């Protein structure tokens, strides 16, 4: 018993508890009594909130499934002109945050928007407004979120196809299946775990989205929580809404975990993957595949980038006024501090789990979904509330200086909340890497007289070098795009590309928001290109 509570166990425990703080805070305030400010809302629009959330979720899942699996299927099994380009360029949509996609969508299709300008320039004056489709409201939100998230499904499905031990189409052919039948009977089921994993990630991000839905004025559970808690101090209702969301996401998380386990089973087939011959498409089929991928690339990446580029060019003064160096420095500062912390702690926690083999720790580890389960904006406020409670209850007793200034409105606070938000990403990455290291390697190290720390440092870290690189790049992209946490917790006079873009946009100056948005996309794209280079090589 005494031996169990060593350094690794304790640190692993502490990390898990820290990540669980926001969930504990949200659930804890269940016992506080509050006013009934929102009775009216409950009688009028509450069902709309739930309906909108479900409708949004289904819409996004449908679109990301079609686009993600469709693209992964064509580029994995066939060759046609441009296939190698599409393989990586389709991932670039990761660089475009949902809210920036929303700005572009609105700007292009609104009355007298960019589409109107294009039509007027092509065909002269005319009343085009009535004929230009309007992608706003919930439809706009579904499109913006889908095109900024489908890459999750695409990347995971493609990887699953990539690691198949034999050519599934050939298998179908041998069985006498038509192409359509092979697709539905063999290919789709074989990639099911990967698809489900991708879709659950999409689902979690969709449910906690705030930027796109608030831009389009769609009331969802998330905006409901925000209004109930932050605007009206009605914690009871906020918590009731949060718990709906939490249960939903917990379900998705379990689903994702189960399918991940299955995915591992599928991919661990011993012979590894051998290069399989791809089917060459000819004629109209080749044209169709090419067009499909091109359209997705155009809509998901080129469209928002062009809109932002267009504005940056016709309103160059906004770019000139931007302090790019400072914004870049701030963004990179946050990225590097947070990634280091995240990876270091995910490592310690995983290693602690590994050496202590404690069931309790494993269960506690489930709380690492905390970051996913609670929307960023709610997370940030939960953090402030917690620090303030802790300060008032504990620190004041000892009559020492308040700790609030260290955590609220400081880089430290920001990094800590990023840590909670993105811990699940880092943790899962390290975990899946660790699962590939056989326990016997640890045993051998101990036999050689290595201490636990030495095993960790000299055996595990070199083993996982590649996973670390990949995860840090993913974290980088996420943190560059992060908005609500940065907005509320940042220090004075501290701007990033994301906050700058948001502030202009909320002042109805989307033209001015274009320059920081464009730079944000360029930087994130750069990191994505490194990632895809690296993964394609692997």
């Amino acid at each position, binding site marked *: 018993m005494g031996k169990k509570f060593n350094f690794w166990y304790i640190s692993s425990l502490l990390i898990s508890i820290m990540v669980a703080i926001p969930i504990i805070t949200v659930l804890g305030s269940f016992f506080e009594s509050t006013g009934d400010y929102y009775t009216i809302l409950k009688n009028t629009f509450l069902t709309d909130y739930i309906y909108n959330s479900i409708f949004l979720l289904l819409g996004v899942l449908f679109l990301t499934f079609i686009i993600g699996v469709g693209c992964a299927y064509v580029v994995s099994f066939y060759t046609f002109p441009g296939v190698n380009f599409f393989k990586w360029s389709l991932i670039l949509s990761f660089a475009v945050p949902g809210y920036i996609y929303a700005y572009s969508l609105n700007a292009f299709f609104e009355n007298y928007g960019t589409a109107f300008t294009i039509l007027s320039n092509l065909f002269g004056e005319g*009343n085009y407004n009535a004929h230009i489709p309007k992608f706003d409201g919930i439809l706009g939100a579904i499109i913006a979120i889908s095109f900024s998230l489908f890459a999750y499904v695409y990347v995971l499905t493609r990887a699953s196809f990539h690691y198949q031990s034999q050519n599934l189409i050939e298998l179908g052919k041998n069985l006498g299946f038509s192409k359509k039948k092979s697709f539905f009977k063999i290919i789709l089921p074989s990639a099911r775990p990967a698809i489900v994993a991708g879709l659950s990630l999409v689902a979690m991000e969709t449910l906690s989205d705030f930027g796109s839905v608030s831009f389009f004025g769609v009331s969802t559970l998330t905006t409901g929580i925000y209004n109930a808690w932050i605007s009206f101090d009605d914690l009871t209702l906020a918590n009731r809404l949060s718990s709906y969301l939490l249960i939903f996401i917990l379900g998705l998380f379990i689903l994702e975990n189960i399918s991940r386990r299955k995915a591992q089973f599928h991919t661990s087939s011993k012979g590894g993957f051998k290069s399989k011959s791809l089917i060459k498409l000819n004629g109209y089929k080749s044209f169709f595949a090419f067009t499909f991928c091109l359209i997705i690339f155009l809509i998901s990446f080129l469209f928002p980038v062009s809109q932002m580029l267009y504005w940056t060019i016709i309103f160059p003064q906004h770019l000139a006024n931007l302090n790019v160096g400072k914004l870049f420095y701030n963004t990179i500062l946050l990225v590097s501090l947070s990634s280091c912390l995240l990876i270091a702690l995910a490592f310690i926690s995983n290693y602690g789990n590994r050496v202590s083999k404690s069931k309790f720790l494993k269960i506690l580890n489930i709380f690492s979904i905390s970051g996913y389960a609670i929307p960023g904006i709610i997370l940030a406020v939960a953090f402030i509330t917690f620090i303030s409670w802790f300060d008032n209850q504990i620190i004041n007793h000892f009559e020492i200086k308040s700790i609030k200034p260290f955590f609220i409105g400081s880089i*430290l606070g920001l990094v800590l909340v990023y840590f909670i938000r993105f811990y699940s990403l880092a943790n899962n990455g390290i975990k899946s890497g660790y699962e590939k290291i056989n326990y016997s390697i640890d045993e051998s190290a101990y036999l050689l007289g290595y201490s636990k720390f030495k095993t960790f440092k000299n055996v595990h870290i070199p083993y996982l070098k590649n996973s670390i690189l990949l995860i840090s790049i993913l974290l980088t992209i996420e943190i560059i795009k992060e908005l609500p946490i940065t907005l509320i917790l940042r220090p004075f006079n501290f701007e990033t590309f994301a906050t700058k873009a948001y502030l202009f946009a909320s002042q109805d100056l989307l033209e001015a928001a274009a320059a920081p948005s464009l730079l944000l996309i360029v930087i994130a794209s750069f990191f994505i290109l490194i990632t895809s280079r690296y993964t394609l090589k692997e």
Partner: protein
Amino acid sequence: MKKIIVIILTSILLNNFAIANEVNVFSSRHYESDIELYKKFTNQTGIKVNVISGKDEALQKRIIEEGTNSKADLYITSDAGNIAIFDSKGMFQNSMSPTIEKLVPSNFRNKNWVGITKRARILFYSPERVVNDDLKNLNYEDLANPKWKGRIVIRQSNNIYNQSLIASLIFNNGKETTGEWAKSIVKNMARDPKGNDRAQILAVAAGEADIAIANTYYYALMLSGNKGLEQQIAAKKVLPFFPNQNNRGTHMNISGGGILKYAPNKGSAIKLIEFLLTKEAQQHLVNNTYEYPMIEGVEPHELLKKMGTKFKQDLTTDVASYGQYQSDALEIMLNAKWK
């Protein structure tokens, strides 16, 4: 472990420790021109202005939770209802000085906070589809008339400017009457509310509706050409109209702020407010944001003058009532199924 220690040390070093000669502003106004103005203030006084801008709700939450440790001196926002509600939570302290009292009309301030600029929430109509007879003596109240059925656009009920407009109607006409009015407005809407104020004006320009309710500066921004040629052309297809000219006047709202209860730099904060109310600063504000000046003797932007400066502003409704009736306003709109 070393990394962690380095991280913690760096963060502590980067933390903003209070410097004597500074003032910390929490602002939900996101104008770049505000920042330029603060720089001017620093040049004149040597007092550094630190700014955090963000959404009102989040900024308020942060100030409340930081409590006595809050470094915030001044909270600036662009709606009277917002300020008044924050005031009713006891978050401000006396922000007045004789200078401020002399400059600002009494319905645009109380002892804890003060308006800095004004904006009007008015009607924008299509001259092709709305005739002069319709506009004669038109009041906000008259938009409930069934003759406007399917012709009005206005944004969602969660919008603070709408809440303040409806609060002013409750203040003047009572809750019950305004409740009926809101129900009629919803019936008269040309479409479900969506988009910002500019989107409403565009909807009239594009022929989707005949009358839009929107704030004045959105229209001026479109006319200015800063949003491109198409927006300018669209703006020229609609005309502004100032309602309630034969009674209390057009609904006015403010951007303003107050000194926070635990402000560490109260003296500097007062200086900053007084600076914002100087002629020089007011001219800078109205030139860049197309708002109306708070003080006498400053001309609004040319584009606003073209819209008409001789209109009667509502100077009898205390803007503090927007806060007082905010929850009633939201309740009325929700009950009217105003999305």
